[in-house]
C-alpha cells in the first residue's frame, strides 16, 4: 500500500523529532571550541582527543565487555528457560514463573538497581567480603534485567512452531537432544537473535541499574558521562556518539544488504503461508506477545532458516571470540591500583596535555622495577563516593575527597594513616595548607587542589555596580536569568554567606532562615545547575551564577561573541580543599603512597593544575614561571588570592562535616525548596 501525502508528512515530522538531537550531536562533535552550545567552526580536534583519551576508551571497552557477556549469557539462559516454560504443564508453577519474569519489566529500573544493590551490600557484609560490588555484580544485574526480554522474544516463536515437528523427528530416529538441536532451535532462531540484540542494546545503554550496582574500578560509559557533572561534558563525548552512530548505521546497512537476496523469496513464502509480516522485525517484545502469537501459522522456509542460522552463528561467534579476547587481555597480571577521583579531575593526556596516569606507571616501573596498572574511576560528588565506600562493597587504594568528607571519614575510621617516609614530596606542600581543621595533625591527607566559590557574571547583561557580593543573585532586575547550585550544601552556603550565618551551624533555625532566603530567590532562578552551567553561561543563556573559581576560565575560553564573562569573589565565600587519602579498604598501601608522592612531582602536578584549572597547593607549581605564563595574569590573580591569609579565611568559611541528623535536615529542607 502506498502512503498518502498526509501520512508522509506525519512520518517526516516524527523522524524530524527523532533525529533532531542526533543531528545536533553530529554537528557539535566537529566544534572547534569546548562548548556544546556555541558553534565556533569546524574541526576534527575532538576526534583526535578521543583517540588519546585512554580512560574513555577503557570505559567504552568495559561497556562492550559487559554488554557482550550479559547478552550472551542471558540469551543462552533465557532461551533454555523459554523452552522449559513453554512445555510446563503445572499451572501454578507456570503462573508464578510468568509473574516473576514480568517483575523486572514492570519495575522501574531504579527499583531493580536499588534492590540488587541492597542485597549485594548486605550479603557482602555478612561474609565480610572486602568488595561486594564489582564487575560480577554489574554482570549479574545486567543479566537479570535482560533475561525477561529474551524469554518474551523466544516464547512466541515456540508457540508458532508446529508441536508435531520435534515428535516427528524423534519418530524418525532422533534422540530428544538431537531433535531439540536439529528441529526446535532453527525454528526459534529469529526470536533468539532478536532477544540477543535486544539484550545487547539494553545493556549497552543502561545507566540507572549500573549506577547502583557498579563498584571497584569497573566504569562503563554511561557512568563516566554522568560523573562528568562537576566539570563539563565535552564535545569529545559527542564525537564518540557520532562514531557509534556511524558504526551502527554501517552494521545495519550491511545486514540489510546481506539479507536482500533471500529477502524477496522469503516474503513470498510467508505470504503463501499466510504468515504475519512482522516477526523478524519485531524488535520490542510486547509484554503480552505470548497471548498474541498463538494464532500464527508456523512453517519457516528452510532456506531462510538456514540463512538465519548462519547469521546467528556468525554473530554468536564474533561475540564469543570478542569476549574471550577481551577477557584474556583484561585478566590482570600486574598489581592494580584503584584510584577514585572526581570526574574530569586529572590530566589524562587529552587536549595535548601530559598523561599523569601513564606517567605514573612508567615512573613506578623505572623506580621500583615492577609493573603496576592504574585503574582510574570517577565519582560525581563526595556523597556519592562516601555512599559507595561506606557500603563496604568496593575497594579503592587512593581517593580524592573534599575536606569536610575527609574529616567525616577520618572520624569514622575509614582512612589509613599515611607513612610520610614514602611521600618525601610532601615537603612541597605550602605551609598554608597544612594542619587545617579536617586533618589537624596531617595524618591522613595530602592536598591535591583548592579553590573557592565566586560569582561569574556576564558584563553584557549585568551592570557592574550590582556586582561585588551575594546580593546580585537575589537582584530582581535579573529575574529569570540567575542560576543557582543544584547541590544542597553549596546552594545553602550562598544564602548563609549572604545573611552572615554560619555555614556549619548545628542550629536548625539557621538552616531554616537560609531556606527562607533560597525560597525568596527561587522565583528569580532560571535553573539549578551543575555541569549545565557551562552551556548556559557560554551562550549568554543566563546572567549570573555562583560557581567554582577555576571553572570560570573554561567558560571564558568557549564564550559566544555576544557574551562577556567576568568573575568576582565575594567577601565571605566557601573555600575548599580536595586531598588525596588512602581508605581502609586499600589493598596496596605502598603503591598508593608512591602514587601520592608521584602526584606531587613537578611535571604531573603542573599538568594537573593546568588541566583542572583550580589552585594548586604545591609550591613547585605555584613558583613555576612557565606555569604562571601558561595560565596568564588574570588566572593567577583569581586562582591564588593572597596566600598569607588563606588559612584564616579557610578556617572561617570552609564546610565542616555535619552529623547525620543535620544532613537529614538539610536534605529535607532541600526537598522543600525543590517542590516549590
Amino acid at each position, binding site marked *: 500500500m502506498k502512503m498518502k501525502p498526509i501520512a508522509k508528512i506525519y512520518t517526516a515530522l516524527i523522524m524530524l523529532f527523532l533525529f533532531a538531537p542526533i543531528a545536533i550531536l553530529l554537528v557539535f562533535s566537529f566544534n572547534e571550541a569546548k562548548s556544546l552550545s556555541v558553534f565556533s567552526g569546524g574541526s576534527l580536534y575532538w576526534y583526535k582527543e578521543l583517540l588519546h583519551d585512554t580512560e574513555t576508551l577503557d570505559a567504552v571497552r568495559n561497556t562492550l565487555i559487559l554488554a557482550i557477556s550479559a547478552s550472551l549469557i542471558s540469551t543462552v539462559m533465557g532461551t533454555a528457560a523459554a523452552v*522449559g516454560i513453554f512445555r510446563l504443564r503445572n499451572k501454578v508453577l507456570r503462573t508464578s514463573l510468568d509473574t516473576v519474569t514480568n517483575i523486572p519489566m514492570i519495575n522501574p529500573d531504579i527499583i531493580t538497581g536499588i534492590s540488587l544493590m541492597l542485597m549485594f551490600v548486605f550479603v557482602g557484609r555478612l561474609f565480610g567480603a572486602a568488595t561486594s560490588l564489582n564487575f560480577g555484580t554489574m554482570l549479574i544485574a545486567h543479566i537479570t534485567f535482560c533475561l525477561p526480554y529474551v524469554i518474551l522474544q523466544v516464547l512466541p516463536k515456540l508457540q508458532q512452531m508446529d508441536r508435531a515437528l520435534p515428535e516427528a523427528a524423534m519418530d524418525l530416529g532422533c534422540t530428544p537432544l538431537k531433535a531439540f538441536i536439529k528441529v526446535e532451535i532453527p525454528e526459534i532462531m529469529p526470536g533468539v537473535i532478536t532477544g540477543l540484540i535486544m539484550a545487547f542494546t539494553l545493556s549497552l545503554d543502561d545507566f540507572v541499574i549500573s549506577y547502583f550496582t557498579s563498584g571497584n574500578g569497573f566504569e562503563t560509559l554511561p557512568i563516566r558521562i554522568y560523573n562528568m557533572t562537576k566539570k563539563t561534558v565535552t564535545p569529545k563525548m559527542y564525537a564518540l556518539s557520532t562514531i557509534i552512530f556511524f558504526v551502527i548505521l554501517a552494521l545495519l546497512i550491511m545486514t540489510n544488504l546481506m539479507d536482500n537476496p533471500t529477502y524477496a523469496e522469503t516474503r513470498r513464502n510467508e505470504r503463501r503461508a499466510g504468515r504475519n509480516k512482522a516477526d523478524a522485525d519485531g524488535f520490542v517484545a510486547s509484554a503480552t506477545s505470548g497471548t498474541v502469537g498463538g494464532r500464527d501459522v508456523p512453517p519457516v522456509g528452510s532456506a531462510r532458516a538456514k540463512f538465519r542460522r548462519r547469521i546467528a552463528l556468525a554473530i554468536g561467534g564474533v561475540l564469543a571470540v570478542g569476549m574471550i579476547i577481551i577477557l584474556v587481555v583484561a585478566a590482570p597480571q600486574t598489581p592494580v591500583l584503584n584510584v577514585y577521583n572526581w570526574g574530569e579531575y586529572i590530566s589524562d593526556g587529552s587536549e595535548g596535555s601530559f598523561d599523569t596516569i601513564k606517567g605514573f606507571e612508567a615512573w613506578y616501573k623505572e623506580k621500583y622495577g615492577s609493573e603496576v596498572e592504574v585503574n582510574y574511576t570517577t565519582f560525581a560528588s563526595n556523597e556519592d563516593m562516601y555512599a559507595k565506600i561506606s557500603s563496604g562493597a568496593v575497594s579503592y587504594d587512593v581517593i580524592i575527597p573534599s575536606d569536610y568528607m575527609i574529616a567525616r571519614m577520618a572520624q569514622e575510621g575509614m582512612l589509613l594513616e599515611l607513612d610520610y617516609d614514602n611521600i618525601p614530596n610532601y615537603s612541597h606542600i605550602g605551609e598554608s595548607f597544612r594542619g587545617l581543621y579536617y586533618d589537624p595533625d596531617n595524618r591522613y591527607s595530602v592536598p591535591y587542589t583548592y579553590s573557592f566559590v565566586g560569582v561569574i557574571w556576564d558584563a553584557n547583561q549585568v551592570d557592574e555596580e550590582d556586582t561585588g557580593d551575594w546580593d546580585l543573585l537575589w537582584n530582581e532586575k535579573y529575574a529569570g536569568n540567575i542560576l543557582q547550585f543544584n547541590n544542597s550544601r553549596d546552594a545553602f552556603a550562598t544564602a548563609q554567606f549572604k545573611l552572615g550565618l554560619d555555614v556549619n551551624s548545628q542550629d536548625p533555625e539557621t538552616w531554616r532562615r537560609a531556606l527562607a532566603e533560597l525560597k525568596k530567590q527561587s522565583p528569580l532562578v532560571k535553573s539549578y545547575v551543575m555541569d549545565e552551567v557551562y552551556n548556559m553561561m557560554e551562550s549568554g543563556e543566563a546572567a549570573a551564577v555562583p560557581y567554582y573559581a577555576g571553572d570560570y576560565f573554561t567558560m571564558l575560553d568557549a564564550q559566544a561573541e555576544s557574551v562577556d564573562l567576568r568573575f568576582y569573589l565575594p567577601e565571605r565565600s566557601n573555600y575548599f580543599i580536595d586531598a588525596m587519602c588512602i581508605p581502609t579498604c586499600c589493598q596496596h598501601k605502598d603503591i598508593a603512597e608512591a602514587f601520592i608522592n608521584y602526584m606531587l612531582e613537578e611535571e604531573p602536578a603542573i599538568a594537573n593544575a593546568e588541566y583542572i584549572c583550580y589552585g594548586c597547593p604545591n609550591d613547585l607549581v605555584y613558583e613555576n614561571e612557565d606555569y604562571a605564563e601558561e595560565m596568564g595574569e588574570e588566572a593567577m590573580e583569581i586562582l591564588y588570592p593572597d596566600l598569607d591569609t588563606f588559612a584564616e579565611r579557610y578556617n572561617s568559611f570552609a564546610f565542616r562535616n555535619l552529623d547525620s541528623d543535620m544532613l537529614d535536615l538539610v536534605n529535607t529542607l532541600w526537598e522543600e525548596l525543590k517542590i516549590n
Partner: protein
Amino acid sequence: MTKKKDGLTLVRRLALAPYSAWALLFIVVPLFFVAYYAFTDNSFHFTFSNITRFFTATSEVSGNGGVTKEVHTYLVIFFRSLKLAVISTIICLAAGYPMAYLLSRASDRTQKILITLIMIPMWMNFLIRTYAWMTILQDTGILNSLLRSIGLGPVHVIGTETAVVIGMVYDYFPYMILPIYSVMAKMDLKLLEAARDLGCNSFQVLRRVIFPLSLPGVISGITMVLIPSISTFYISQKLGNGKFYLIGDAIEGQYVANNLHFAAAIAFILMVILLVCMAFMQRFANSKASVQ
C-alpha cells in the same frame, strides 16, 4: 517412544532449572531486601517510621499571592511525577498509534527502513541524547534561533514541564510504537475486510475492530513508557533546570545522602503502587480480550 518423550521432558526441565534459580535469587530475593530495608532503621530494628515519613512529611510552599501553605512533601513529589509520566504516555500513544498503524500497512521495504530509523536513536547513549536536547531547547538554543530566522518570537521551553515532557516522550517514544506495531502487523486483514463488507465505515472499523485487536500492544506500550518516565531522574535534572524534583530524584537524593532505609521505603511504596496499577491494567486487558 514414551521413553524418548520422557527424555525430552527431562531435557526441558533441566533447561528451566538455571533460570528458575536465577530468578529466585536475583529477582525475588532482592525485592525482599527492599522491604527489609524499608521496614528497619539504621541499626536494623523493625520500624514503620520510614513508611509513615513518606505519607506525613510536610513542607511549606508559597502558593498564589504569597500565601504559604503546608503540603505533604513526598505525596506532592509523587503526584507530580505521575502527572508528567501520564502526560508523556498520552502523547506517546497519540503520536505513536497512527505511526504504528501506518507502519503496519506500508510496503515491506518501507516498513523495514522506518523501523530501523525508529530504532537508531535507541542505540545512542540516552544521557548524551538528553544533553543534545538542552542545546536545542535553551532560550538561546537552536529552536529559538530557527524561530527568530523565520520571524517568530522566542519561546521559553527549557526548565518548564514542557521540556521535561519532551525529554520523556523522546526517550521512550520507540517503546510505544514498536509493541503496537508488532501486534498490528500480525492482524488478520480478512477481519477488516469482513467488517467493511458488513457495512462498517472506516471509523467504525478502527473503533470496533482495529483498536480492540491492538489492545495488547497498546497496554504493553503504555507500560513501557509509563514505568520508566515515572521513575526517571536524569531527564528532570537536565531539561527541567533542576526545578522539577521527581520521585526518582527523591530516591537518588536519599541514596546519595546515605539514607538507604528511607530510599528503600520510597522505592518500596512506588513499587507497590505500580504493581497494583499494572495488575489492574492486565486484568482490564484480559477481560477485553476474552470479550473478543
